[in-house]
């Protein structure tokens, strides 16, 4: 069964009940995501990608079908066991960052550690959080509150929070949805770096150019996988950033392309 897949979905269905009506949101999805893959999950709203994301994130259980995360069947676990799985194996990055307000970047990053089985001292928490914050380029911002940080910096704090417990997979739900295009590319740069370090990333997006930073695009429609293909013309964030920098400096000199 194990072919290097860290995430393995077998014929997963999810049906919501609203009163008498049964609304199928996911209608039989089978999906393998190997270790160190960077997958973009795409689809219009109502395609079932959010529901699938919730199942992947162990926030929700499939109505039928099975879900193996890191070779363990998690489809039938109860609330508390799922919470433990989320804590140890999954890192979440949200569109609206979901940082705790009036709380320093460091304390935000420490948050998952507080729910860890392993108890750490405050000094250990701090040391670990500062190390991860440094790895996403936020040295010197550890004591800043979210309101004192730019959108891109807030999303970096959220990424650091997702990474703090060394998860099996990072799930990002429209991570660039609230960011301008340049900052979006920066965030994609971080994702690509993390991916090169061997971290598995699943990212929901509806933007084609953001999806092109991933290795593989899975498109959903009406609760099933419509297409699943490897990205051939993959964007590299570093190159894109250089290009953008060059064009702005040309604009400054008044010799822009237009």
């Amino acid at each position, binding site marked *: 069964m194990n072919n290097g897949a860290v995430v393995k979905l077998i014929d997963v269905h999810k049906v919501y009940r609203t009163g008498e009506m049964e609304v199928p949101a996911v209608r039989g999805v089978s999906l393998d995501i190997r270790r160190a893959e960077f997958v973009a999950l795409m689809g219009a709203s109502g395609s079932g990608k959010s529901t699938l994301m*919730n199942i992947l*994130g162990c*926030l*929700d259980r499939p109505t039928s079908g099975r879900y193996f995360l890191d070779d363990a069947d998690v489809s039938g676990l109860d*609330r*508390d066991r799922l*919470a*433990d799985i*989320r*804590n*140890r194996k999954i890192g*979440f990055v*949200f569109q609206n960052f*979901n*940082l*705790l*307000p*009036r*709380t320093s970047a460091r*304390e935000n990053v420490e*948050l*998952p550690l*507080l*729910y*860890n*089985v392993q*108890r750490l001292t*405050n000094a250990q928490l701090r040391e670990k959080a500062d190390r991860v914050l440094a790895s996403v380029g936020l040295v010197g911002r550890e004591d800043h509150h979210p309101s004192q940080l730019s959108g891109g910096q807030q999303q970096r704090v959220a990424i650091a*929070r997702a990474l703090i417990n060394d998860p099996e997979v990072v799930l990002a739900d429209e991570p660039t949805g609230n960011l301008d295009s340049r900052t979006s590319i920066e965030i994609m740069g971080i994702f690509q770096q993390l991916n090169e370090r061997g971290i598995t990333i699943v990212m929901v997006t509806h933007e084609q150019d953001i999806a092109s930073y991933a290795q593989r695009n899975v498109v959903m429609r009406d609760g099933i996988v419509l297409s699943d293909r490897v990205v051939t013309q993959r964007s590299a964030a570093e190159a894109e950033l250089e290009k953008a920098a060059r064009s702005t400096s040309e604009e400054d000199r008044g010799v822009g392309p237009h």
Partner: protein
Amino acid sequence: MRVGSTFNVAFRALRRNKLRSVLTALGIIIGVGAVIAMVGIGNGAKAQVEAQIASLGQNVILIFSGSTTSSGIRTGWGGAGTLKIEDAEAIRREVPGVAGVSEEVVSTTQVAAGNQNWFTRIYGESADYFDIRQWPLADGAPFTPQDVRSANKVCVIGRTTATQIYGNEDPVGQILRIKEVPFTITGVLTPKGLSPQGVDQDDIVIMPYTSAMKRVIGGTNLRNINVQIGDARQVEAAQQQIIALLRQRHNIRPGRDDDFTVRNQQEIAEAATATSRVMTLLLGAIAGVSLVVGGIGIMNIMLVSVTERTREIGVRMAVGAHGTDILTQFLIEAVTLSSVGGVIGIICGIGASRILSAYAHWPTLISLSSILIAFLFSAAVGVFFGFYPARQAARLDPIEALRYE
């Protein structure tokens, strides 16, 4: 295992909302402070009454002459004139365990010395009276049993009377005219303050009861007899023996009512403290209401907080918090608010009662037990009113919570 972290989480959350935390705790601070101060006032009043009762003397039995009805007019206690000097002597002689007996007659009259005069109470007593009432002299000496036997024209006076007549002069050895009879003042009593009924006990002239009967009041009837028993355990028995003795002496047949009334100090104390006990309860209950209101304030804020922090709860659950972690966090927040408020409230309550004592001259008494009860109650308020919001928070669905706007 995770409780330590949860404390950490809860304290961080409280620190994040400092103003709200302080305002929420304020309800409890006021509630606990009010309870401490009110109960302190009530207990202080009770203690004062008890001290005044104790000033009546230890193990004292009071025998009052009965009332009588003449032409349809009832005289009240002491009016019947049924107690005689011989009754007092019989008690002194026949009742075991008696440490002292004082025959008492009472009147009010004008007294004068030099160009000053004053309207005061005249008490005729035996020489035992000062021991029975535990009322030492500040200056001079009491009259003696010999003075009583001879009905000498001597008296001791209370502090108020002394000040009114003699000002700053030393009254000992001076002559005080009572109904135009000159009495020599042998001593001045130590001040005793107000009685439980609010009468100034120092506004008094005390003389041998024989002198009072012969030279001031007239008559041979006693208003009452004060008896002191040596041993507290014998008071009940002595009281029964006194009743039996007096019934026999007054020829009262079985089945007929006594023509006198016997009270011991215990009964008087109970009657007097009952009022202040009720007052303490009442004050405490009123203050307790404000504590409950404070508790509801906590519940209110915690409920608002759960709604406002729905996203936060969602994030916590997403990163691995169990329902119980959320429940514990919110409970700890509520209990921390209420117990920290309780501690501050206790300090404020103690401060308030100190201020009342100092400026309004109300006696206050704060017992360790009332502090402990107030603290435990405030913590319990936190648990009770924090539980519902905490459970609401713990039951949230993480997906819904994360999506909440």
